[in-house]
């Protein structure tokens, strides 16, 4: 490196769950030569799952992520069931679906209000001491109270179905260890009433943010990539045993819609020498051409429509403004609100289904066997793939996991490189239209 070249290290990357640094390499003119998104931690669950009893895997793997333990729990138990060829009772599947929706509600509310909103509400130029949830709380206590209420509702649903709000335990190969009683169902329905009321406010905040920042959203860090997400005949879903995995190319064409068990033909992992998280990509397109994104924006891009009516209206509004496919990274936050609406509507639908209070939630005749099982669900931040190989005693011999956020690592890096060039070389932040901060 010549004397005038410089490296800027952002350590750590903040307001994300997990560990990463950003390394920006500048040339002698101050231009951005390269940017590396360095994920600095891995705990290697794939290895220590080897030798464990398969039924204990759903207890262990939620510890991959404390914000989204539910999809890990559900995906883990269903990969074991797939390996053992066990079909859980339909009421158990509905309980798992409800638990997934509960988690979607709390995680999306947390992500929107605690991780993302402070940048928009305080503005990106505000001091770190106020540009955070506590800062928002001091200036907009009512908004934060509503955010907390939404998070509480989602977590209450998870706790009621899963036994615990963090790291649920009720998913057992063959079904669910705990049924939902009528009293619990009625209590959760009341919470859904409350959540629907809170959504009006949340949508209003999101609309104001989008209107204010439309210039920034549509111009900063925009990168075309592939997209991946589950769907059932084109309809958006985060959990469905019949769902297939759709892939959209950067032009907006659906280039694959494959059954879960075939994932190895379509999903590749590129090892970047500077990151303990691999870069996931669409294997037929190769790396880096096939870099894809997962999560709310990707799921909206690949879906023809939402499953529920109010979410469908919001999707229409979203598409009218940003199109399909939308490559604007900052639009993730808006997509999250569309999905939050669907999760609330879906939770109501499940709670109003009489079968949800069935006591037939667990098979008594589960037998371990040698097998290879794949399960795929949508975690709040992306497509989650579990593959277990078990022996005839039901012990895990091998495990391959593609974890939700991993899908986005390559695109996060690409997006930050674009944004870094825009900011450091073109000084785009001086030209973009920013709204007045909500508070100072």
């Amino acid at each position, binding site marked *: 490196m010549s004397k005038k070249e410089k490296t800027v290290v952002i350590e750590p990357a903040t307001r994300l769950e997990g560990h990463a640094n950003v390394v920006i390499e500048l040339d002698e003119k101050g231009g951005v030569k390269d940017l590396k998104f360095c994920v600095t931690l891995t705990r290697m669950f794939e290895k220590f799952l080897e030798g464990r009893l398969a039924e204990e895997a759903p207890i262990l793997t*939620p510890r991959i992520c404390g914000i989204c333990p539910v999809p890990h729990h559900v995906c883990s138990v269903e990969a074991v069931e797939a390996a053992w060829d066990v079909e859980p009772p339909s009421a158990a599947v509905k309980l798992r679906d409800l638990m997934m929706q509960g988690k979607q509600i709390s995680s999306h509310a947390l992500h929107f209000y605690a991780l993302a909103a402070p940048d928009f509400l305080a503005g990106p130029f505000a001091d770190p001491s106020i540009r955070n949830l506590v800062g928002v709380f001091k200036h907009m206590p009512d908004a934060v109270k509503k955010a907390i209420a939404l998070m509480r509702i989602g977590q209450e649903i998870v706790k009621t179905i899963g036994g615990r709000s963090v790291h649920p335990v009720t998913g057992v190969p063959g079904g669910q260890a705990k049924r939902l009683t009528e009293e619990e169902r009625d209590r959760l329905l009341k919470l859904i009433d409350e959540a629907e009321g809170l959504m009006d406010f949340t949508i209003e905040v999101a609309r104001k943010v989008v209107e204010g920042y439309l210039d920034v959203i549509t111009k900063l860090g925009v990168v075309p990539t592939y997209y991946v997400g589950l769907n059932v005949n084109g309809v958006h879903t985060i959990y469905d045993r019949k769902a297939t995995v759709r892939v959209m190319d950067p032009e907006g064409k659906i280039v694959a819609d494959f059954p879960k068990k075939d994932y*190895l033909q379509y999903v590749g*992992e590129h090892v970047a020498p500077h990151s303990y998280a691999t870069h996931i990509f669409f294997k037929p397109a190769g790396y880096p051409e096939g870099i894809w994104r997962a999560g709310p924006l990707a799921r909206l891009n690949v879906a023809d429509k939402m499953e529920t009516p109010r979410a469908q209206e919001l999707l229409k509004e979203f598409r009218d403004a940003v199109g399909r496919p939308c490559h604007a990274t900052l639009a993730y936050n808006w997509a999250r609100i569309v999905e939050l609406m669907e999760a609330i509507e879906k939770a109501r639908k499940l709670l109003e289904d009489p079968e949800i209070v069935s006591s037939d939630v667990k098979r008594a005749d589960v037998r371990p066997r040698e097998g290879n099982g794949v399960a795929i669900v949508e975690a709040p931040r992306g497509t989650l793939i579990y593959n277990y190989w078990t022996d005839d005693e039901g012990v895990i011999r091998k495990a391959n996991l593609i974890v939700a956020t991993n899908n986005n690592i390559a695109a996060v890096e690409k997006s930050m490189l674009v944004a870094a060039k825009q900011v450091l070389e073109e000084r785009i932040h001086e030209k973009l239209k920013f709204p007045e901060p909500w508070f100072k």
Partner: protein
Amino acid sequence: MPVKVMFVQLASCWGCHQSLVDLHETLADVLPQLEIVYWHTVVDYKLHDVEKLPDGSVDVGFTEGFCRTEEDLYLLKLARQKCKLLVSYGTCSTYGGSPALLNLYQIDEGLKRKFMEAESVVDKKIPDMHVPKMLEYVKPNREYVKYDLFLPGCPPEPPLIAEVVTSLLRGEMPKLKERTLCDECPRVKSEVITIKKVKRAFEGIPDPEKCLLEQGYICMGPATREGCGAVCTRAGVPCRGCMGPGPNVLDQGAKMLSALASIVDYESVSPEELVQSVKDVVGTFSKFTLPSSIIPKAVSKKK
């Protein structure tokens, strides 16, 4: 005056922090009393901001997670240096936690599986640029720095967190409860327990009222500290021991094994059959506490 706090995330899942967020409306009372000087998931302060703080200037620090890399260890030592009072927050920080089961393998085997052998990896190599070096084994954090308080749980349940946080805010040192999980479990136990067979978690349908251990399921209650409210046994599944060893228990796994050995009906099952029926002894009995059990030391000595 607000209390200066830092929340440190080492190798962990953020579940302990999520459990803090799960105080819900109580958070609205707690937040304004805090001045957060570091919490990378929530506030944009960087590492150099912490390095600049005078030593001992932070009132309370909470560490979540264990040290997997040299970067984690650096941050842990930095937190100790800056904080007057350091709280070991959660089971990973206190006993090593479940991802420390990797101690059963060499670190290179873990890296190899993930980056060289995983079925979906296309270009096999182990990352070595701008990433911190892995530590060979997970040790409990207390072997690296001194702590003032331990708050176990994976994660600690919100009521326990509320209790601890409110007493700290009052300037009092909280005290952990001193009984075992069985003492707070509502399930009905017989005077004398004997089991004829050890069952795996998926076998049959457990009776909803009766002690799970009595029904043959390996429930870690007798070897585990109370404080979670017995959330798992209330939800129909056995305790896996995430609160860590009960009071005065040196090794949680060994304690549970001896508890189990004392209740088996040896006329129905021989000691050999009992051992063989548990296919994964370490993962079953030391799921959350391997680094603080006597097992890893034996492994290290063999090396």
